[in-house]
């Protein structure tokens, strides 16, 4: 089989655990991704609740986010290729991880892109991630075009205007938000606050990477 990440040939090793999962990356490339850490709300390694999440909780905006991997060199390289070079097939790398995600929610909501952004990139990376999670996908949100958040400082990110608008009612629903990278969590919290204001029963989130 050809590895999706390094294009080298490798022989998948079958074990009872991975018998029904697909191996699309060679063992070397699979090893490069590091599982996220201890923080209960965002998976940041170190403490059971990181300082950022304590601050969110004090503000009364608790959002339990499950992050799969750390946004280290391997993660950055992955996102560069997946999102900025335009190689959407690479999401298959995390196919079996995403398949194993089981959450008791009614709706799975990928964070939308603005119309301008999707015309440029041609696909929504969060929607591709959400597609591989079991459950109902819905798009109750829309997004207005603001400058990209990658490249802003923490203070600038937190002071931004909320880009999300509600399009469809979501009252009483338990919702899982899906995004690609959790950096400061501002984007996810903004989307969650819009949904909560519209009467969502419970909001949690999932991202592929947690930046460190």
């Amino acid at each position, binding site marked *: 089989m050809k590895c999706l990440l390094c294009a080298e040939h490798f022989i998948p090793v079958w074990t009872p655990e991975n018998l029904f999962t697909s191996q699309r990356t060679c063992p070397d490339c699979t090893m490069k991704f590091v599982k996220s850490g201890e923080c209960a709300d965002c998976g940041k390694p170190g403490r059971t609740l990181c300082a950022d999440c304590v601050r969110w909780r004090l503000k009364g905006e608790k959002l339990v986010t499950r992050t799969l991997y750390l946004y280290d060199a391997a993660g950055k390289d992955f996102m560069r290729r997946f999102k900025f*070079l*335009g*190689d*959407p097939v690479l999401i298959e790398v995390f196919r079996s991880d995403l398949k194993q995600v089981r959450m008791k929610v009614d709706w799975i909501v990928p964070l939308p892109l603005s119309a301008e952004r999707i015309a440029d990139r*041609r696909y929504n990376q969060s929607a*591709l991630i959400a597609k591989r999670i079991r459950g109902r996908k819905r798009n109750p949100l829309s997004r207005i075009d603001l400058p990209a958040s990658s490249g802003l400082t923490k203070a600038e990110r937190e002071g931004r205007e909320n880009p999300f608008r509600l399009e469809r009612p979501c009252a009483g629903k338990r919702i899982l938000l899906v995004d690609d990278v959790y950096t400061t969590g501002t984007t996810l919290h903004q989307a969650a606050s819009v949904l909560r204001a519209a009467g969502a029963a419970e909001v949690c989130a999932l991202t592929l990477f947690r930046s460190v």
Partner: protein
Amino acid sequence: MLRGRLVRHTGPHPGLIRFKAVTWRCRRCGGLPTPAPCTCGPFCRYCRHCLALGVLRSCDTLATDPRPLDPPKPARLIPKELTPAQERISSRIEQAIATGSRLLVHAVCGAGKTPMLDRGIETSLRLGKRVLVAAPRTDVVRELARHFEAAFPDADIKVLYGGSSDRLQVGDITISTTHQLFHYYRCFDTVIVDEIDAFPYRFDYRLRRAVRRAAKPGASRILLSATPARLDRLLPVVTLSRRYHGFPLPVPRLHLGYRFDDVKAFILDHPDAPRLLFVPRVSQLDVWQRKLAEVGITAETVHAADPARAEKVERFRTSRGILLATTILERGVTIKNVQVAVCEADRFTESALIQIAGRAGRSTDHPDGDVVFFADDRTNALYGSIDAIKRANRG
């Protein structure tokens, strides 16, 4: 000046073309595209093979700059001294270029293939034909560029490789890696391809296609190789089996059933010469380095992904040290008085072994060198390569 360049923009030609009831093909590189989500609908595809050149989808368009190029200007050549044998090949090349035909030049390692091209290129420019010299490897391209810049001091020469400043330009003489040719379509009247048997050109149909498409229809094609494949030998061939200095090629010694002590003895036999040891895989480099360190021999290693590759080779040129290398050093490297050993030679291909043996004895001062193949097993490649070298020496 960005002429003959392929650019992506909206226009009449779709980026990927559909073959009836077969499949899609990438217009740029000829590879098979992959289905992917896109705003255009559920059946969009994109090409992952040439993604490094920018993403190309089936809903995108690929366009060629159709403006005609200025005819090339004749250039002054500083002629180099050629041996009578080289002279013969040189005039055959000139003739092939003038008539627009194809030719395979089968010349042994160290025959001086590059200077034989000079007169052909001069003729080509005089006839108003644009010249492309392509090679699959960047090191070879740099070496070719150095030669032609000296031979044609006032010609318009462009050198293209990943990260060069001349990218996407067309000169009267363009020296390029085969990978850069994806950007060109019907630009050159004379195409010279050096080292046609080198990895990855030999196995990659996309690169062969890129070279074919960079040439104008009816362009003359000159292929150069020391170890051409069977299929390439069907072209008209000229053979040169003498090195430029007239000495025969060093015939490799075959050492079957070797032990580590034999390799150590080889290293200790040549204390005042640079010694080059080849191993079949990158992972073997560390193993051999450790083994040698245990007996008190320090060796450097070099492989394709090594960031300090160029410096290490440059340092090795002037030193009398030991260098462990993978097949990246099999061609295009000239080191004075080098002694060569191949560890686990039964795992190399025939052309690799011929090229490796051709590293030894390339300079006039040291026309002979020791070449040893250390092998555990007998293979056709081992015997074939030694046979080919002996046959070349017989002439």
